[in-house]
């Protein structure tokens, strides 16, 4: 119980995700979690410390708002360990014992799922970034661990004193990747931090915690609420399968069932007022969020990523336009910059310019200042 007192589970949701959050909170309580649960939501949530959505936090497209909520609202909570859980999770067994252990080995935790750079890796990219390029990006950013794995942004834990650092590092990596032509959602930064802020990052390997957390992304539990029975987990990067029965299920393909469950829990007791107006990023994203199609979370993130990618390219194009005239930018003209080509071009340009400079220097060498130069030549000769 004392460990429970030191941690706070928290989440943020709006729209239909609010019903999923209700289902999550109720599952936590039903399985025996007695600690504090803080939720930021556009409608009240039972059995949790409910707070309204902060209208001053931009619900940015790539979900970095999680870090804004963390720093603005959660970092000063009396709890030491803050566990963020996305609303599309469901808990089937008591988690009170497990959660404090996640954060014993450093200030930050997310589960590291599939290998990106080992012989077992089968998938060639993560968020559209080829594995080799991603690994190099991590190295250049400062990740020193040999085996690099992907992670899931839906579940992470942090010591409250680390909140501001996490926010800064997450954004720094995002910016670092953006400059290399990759616009990633927040979970990529989350993965990077789980490597960098671990004395032993293997502690965070998801396959070492099959009893605690698992991400069901292939539809094994399609449209069903997890019920505590084992299910087949497919590793996202390696494709390896295993039978798991984690206490916390990231039920990504069970959204309709979770929404229905959440609505039934909310019942008549909850005053279902008009949802609070939320600053949603764009009509396209809004549509994706409200979609009942399977994998709406992925669709939403993909949409957000594409929008941000296009925005970054437009910004880059606008930046170039400052120095040289550019053709009118149409959607068809937006292409991913081939960084290798760009590098070799700029290298060639620098070489040419350097040669030009050298020629100029040689030419200028013929201009004489005899008195001083003669003295210097004399010094060199001596």
């Amino acid at each position: 119980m004392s460990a429970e007192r030191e941690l706070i589970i928290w989440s943020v949701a709006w729209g239909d995700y609010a019903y999923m959050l209700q289902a999550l909170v109720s599952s936590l309580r039903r399985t025996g979690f007695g600690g504090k649960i803080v939720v930021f939501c556009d409608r009240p949530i039972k059995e949790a410390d409910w707070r309204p959505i902060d209208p001053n936090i931009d619900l940015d497209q790539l979900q970095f708002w999680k870090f804004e909520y963390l720093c603005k609202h959660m970092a000063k909570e009396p709890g030491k360990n803050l566990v963020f859980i996305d609303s599309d999770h469901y808990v089937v067994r008591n988690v009170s014992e497990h959660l404090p252990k996640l954060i014993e080995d450093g200030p930050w935790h997310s589960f590291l799922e599939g290998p990106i750079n080992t012989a077992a890796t089968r998938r060639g990219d993560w968020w559209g970034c080829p594995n080799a390029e991603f690994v190099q990006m991590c190295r250049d950013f400062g990740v020193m661990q040999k085996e690099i794995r992907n992670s899931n942004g839906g579940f992470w834990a942090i010591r409250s004193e680390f909140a501001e650092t996490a926010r800064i590092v997450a954004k720094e990596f995002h910016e670092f990747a953006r400059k290399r032509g990759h616009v990633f959602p927040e979970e990529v930064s989350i993965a990077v931090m789980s490597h960098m802020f671990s004395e032993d990052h293997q502690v965070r390997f998801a396959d070492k915690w099959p009893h605690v957390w698992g991400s069901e992304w292939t539809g094994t539990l399609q449209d069903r609420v997890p019920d505590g029975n084992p299910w087949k987990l497919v590793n996202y990067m390696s494709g390896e399968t295993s039978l798991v029965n984690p206490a916390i299920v990231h039920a990504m393909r069970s959204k309709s069932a979770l929404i229905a469950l959440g609505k039934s829990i909310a019942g008549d007791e909850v005053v279902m007022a008009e949802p609070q107006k939320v600053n949603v990023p764009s009509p396209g994203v809004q549509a994706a969020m409200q979609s009942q199609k399977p994998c709406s979370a992925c669709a939403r993130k993909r949409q957000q990523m594409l929008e941000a990618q296009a925005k970054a390219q437009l910004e880059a194009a606008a930046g170039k336009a400052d120095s040289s005239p550019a053709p009118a930018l149409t959607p068809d003209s937006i292409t991913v910059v081939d960084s290798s080509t760009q590098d070799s071009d700029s290298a060639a340009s620098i070489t040419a310019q350097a040669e030009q400079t050298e020629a100029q220097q040689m030419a200028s060498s013929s201009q004489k200042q005899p008195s001083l130069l003669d003295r210097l030549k004399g010094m060199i000769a001596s």
Partner: protein
Amino acid sequence: MKPSLYIFQWPSDLGGADTRMRDIVTLCAHDYDITVVPNDEFRLQEKNWTDWMDSLGVKYCMLESLPDKLEGFAFSCCNFRLFTDKERIRGIKSRGLKFIWANDMMWHTEAELAAIRQGLVDVVLYTSQFHADKLHGDVVSARPMQPMRIVKNYIDASHWPMVVRPDRQPVMGKVSRPDTAKFSIDLPMLWQAAAPLWKYDLMGWGDDVADKFSWHTFDSRWKLRPPCSISVKDWHAAVDVFVYNGSFSYIENQSRAVVEAQLSGMPVIAPPKWNFPNMVWHTRTGFLVDDLDSMRAALDSLKSPETRWKMGSLARECALSIWCDERDARREWNSLIAFAAEVR
């Protein structure tokens, strides 16, 4: 009569630019009539430094005290206030001095590039081809015909004697100016992960740096020293292996602290990038590591005092021959000045 060299910078024992300037003054005092011009008048009251300059026959004064017309050369290394306080750069040029500018960092400032664009810098100086490759593109963009030279760093070996270290629980460390960018954000986790049984000694632990790492609980293995809390020589004696772990936030040009550590007989662990491959002979004078496993292996082999002594001794020999050749350095500087004299 010696040519006049005006150095717009003040020396100190902390940071690559100031220690470089100190060593250049020592190197060139014999060949040039040197005047040191600080940014701030209070510097002229720093008796340890004015005594040192007096001993070398070097003069010192404020810019305003210089005659309106001068013949000779101006030099400055990383004193960016010359550009932000525009009267300084104008004061150099209006007096007729040829200005040699060394930006030892790996980035430019807007004001610096603006001055280059206006032709106020006669010669841009780099310390290595790597350095020039990184910076000269922007310089050429600002001023296509900008004259440039490469003169490698010179380090006065007389400041850095070989240290005989006792057999003890090994200590890895780093000394730096108190710049947050110099300490990678994962440093405490990384070092503890790489060598949990070692001790760790960091000098340069200013308030900002401490604040950056306020999330970490530093246990008894750590010694966190404020900048200049002891002399670097004494710090060398307290540390067995110098570790430089880089990150995206700071690209190192040429760490003088690394060379100074090598001169004291310390093996160095550094990343296999930037200019480090020119400074660390992998497996002979230290290790170039780019992942945690190789860092662990390097530190494991350096647990042995004999290995540290052997590598450290060779590190000193190499550093002496590469960075501390006074005759070669004087020739390079005289050649640079001759080059500057010819620049129009």
